């Protein structure tokens, strides 16, 4: 029972991260390998804010994702926008290279041991649930991620803006002909995806050591989540993220040695049975 709960916490991180990836892939057709680095940047910005400017956790939760989002927009405007018409591979290589550069810069500046970032005072301590001790902070992580995930899903699937966005990706020329500024939409989407990664980074900062490597440890698993959920499927990535977190938690208990691989075993099986992923649409 306790392990399930912990799995849900990890699943929340997977969900928010894979959601950002799914949004970017679904709307822009870019496989964003820089996502892990953006996540790391979010965490680092939170730490830097506290260390150099005295900005607390709650402000960081808003400011860091915004900064990462702006950074994402700069990347999109200066580099990514030239790649949409080319093969996926170009976007993948560019973002992978960017990830290496960003991580390298942070490693150079701060080393890999990481920086301490403590849990905000309001959320220290925990509930005793009887079967386990749940730190307040972990509970907050679940709530915050679910709220963000739901908000994103709602925004894209149920609002007018979301409809424009989906139209812009479906048929950019026609959408533009209706007077909608497609490049602007695309730019904002990438910025939003990046901001989601930054948000996950701030959420993670008090839980795991803020280190330049934190993103690269996680990104491969998150990609597996996106593939299992179905590339580009928003609901799929949220549900798969949570589900896989729980499965990983159970594996940790039953056979810890397999916890690092279980996600990939599932990915292989899903790809064999449903190549488009659990929630993906066959093309």
């Amino acid at each position, binding site marked *: 029972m*306790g*392990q399930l709960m912990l799995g849900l916490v*990890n699943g929340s991180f997977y969900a928010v991260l894979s959601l950002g990836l799914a949004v970017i892939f679904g709307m822009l057709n870019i496989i964003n390998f820089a996502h892990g680095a953006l996540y790391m940047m979010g965490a680092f910005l939170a730490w830097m804010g506290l260390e150099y400017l005295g900005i607390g956790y709650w402000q960081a939760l808003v400011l860091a994702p915004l900064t990462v989002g702006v950074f994402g927009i700069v990347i999109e405007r200066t580099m990514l926008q030239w790649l949409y018409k080319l093969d996926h591979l170009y976007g993948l290589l560019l973002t992978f290279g960017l990830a290496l550069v960003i991580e390298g810069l942070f490693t150079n500046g701060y080393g890999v041991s990481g920086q*301490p970032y403590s849990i905000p005072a309001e959320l220290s301590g925990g509930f005793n649930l009887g079967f386990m*001790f749940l730190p307040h902070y972990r509970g907050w992580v679940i709530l915050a991620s679910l709220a963000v995930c739901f908000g994103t899903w709602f925004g894209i699937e149920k609002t007018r803006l979301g409809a424009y966005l989906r139209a812009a990706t479906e048929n950019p020329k026609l959408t533009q002909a209706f007077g909608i500024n497609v490049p602007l939409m695309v730019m904002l989407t990438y910025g939003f995806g990046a901001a989601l990664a930054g948000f996950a980074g701030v959420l993670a900062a*008090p*839980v795991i050591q803020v280190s330049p490597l934190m993103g690269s*440890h996680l990104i491969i698993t998150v990609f597996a989540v996106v593939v299992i959920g179905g590339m580009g499927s928003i609901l799929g990535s949220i549900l798969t993220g949570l589900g896989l977190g729980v499965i990983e938690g159970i594996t940790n208990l039953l056979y810890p040695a397999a916890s690092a691989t279980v996600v990939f075993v599932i990915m292989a099986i899903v790809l064999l049975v449903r190549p488009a992923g659990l929630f993906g649409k066959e093309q």
Partner: protein
Amino acid sequence: MKHKLLCVAIAAALIPAAPAVLAQAKPAAMKLSDNMVKIGVLTDMSGVYSDLGGQGAVTAVQMAIDDFKAQYKPKFKIEMVYADHQNKADVGSNKAREWYDTQGVDMVTDLLNSGVALAVAKVTQEKKRVVMVVGAGSTRLTDQDCTPNTVHYAYDTYSLANVAGKAIVKNGGDTWFFLTADYAFGQSLEKDTSDVVKANGGKVLGSVRHPLNASDFSSYLLQAQASKAKIIGLANAGGDTINAIKAASEFGITKTQHLAGLLMFITDIHALGLQTTQGMLLTSGFYWDKDDATRKFAKRYFDKTKRMPTMVQAGDYSAVTTYLKAVVAAGTDDAAAVMKKMKETPINDFFAKNGTIRVDGRMIHDMYLMQVKKPSESKYPWDYYDIKSVVPGNEAYQPLSVSHCSLVKK
């Protein structure tokens, strides 16, 4: 009797030859392959252990070479190359092979990962060069997998277990549960610590093995908590130890159970802060603030890197200096001759007092039991440890009497 006679005869035959050998050893007649001594630093440049060695190790080795040149003015060239072993045994051993075969590297050092170090030791033996392992911890390097070409320099899992492990059991921590990094180093450390715990009357209640670079430790810690062991032994290192300690304090586990970081480096303490780590007992072979000599080295190192040296980085400096001195004394960079010289000559520098390299390759030197200071006791940056006791090398390391090393005559 017959054997004895034979030995005497051989010895008698060799004695007249000995002065000739010594005469050749004069600096003017150095016998060097390619008239150069080349040292390879094989380390983790960007991964989870790169703060323990990494760029800092490269800096320390360069300092050692520069200092050696300035002090001894050798007539031969000394060069350094470095590479990233990425904590992968195949990457490390391929790099070492390439260095030995094509670049004329004479000695490889640092090696932050036991899996890598064991693989490189094999290649080194095959190519008849020298490997001085500083960063990796597995006792296998000088026990069942010892080679005539290996020196294991700064510490090993046995000494970690034997110093801090013993002290913790004696202070009442007699039931243990292990969180173990699932590879050669973690397994070695768990086994050695379990042996020490049991030998001192304690009990091991269980263990859980996690993959290297596990991102989340909460589920393992919950299992440790359920075991109700008084001590949770962290048989891992670097980022894994840091994340485990962080999660343990978050889940309130540290209120009822104690954590024992079996291999903690000063960079880990720096990353976690004294608030989280205060009071922890740990083993180290080096502390920058021990005496004037260590402070002098540490200050010079700090000026270059803006960090204090870890046990590994200081050990790299000392190992390279020891090696270069042995090359000069032996008059050659031939591995067998240099190894013989190193094993004969005591090591005296800021790192080791009367250190000796044993027949199995283990460098024996004093180890320290440290306690992490309270935040209020720390007076200046990096003022983190109290030295609780000094454990003499011959007590800290595994005695030769129980060694499985084929070089040890029983």
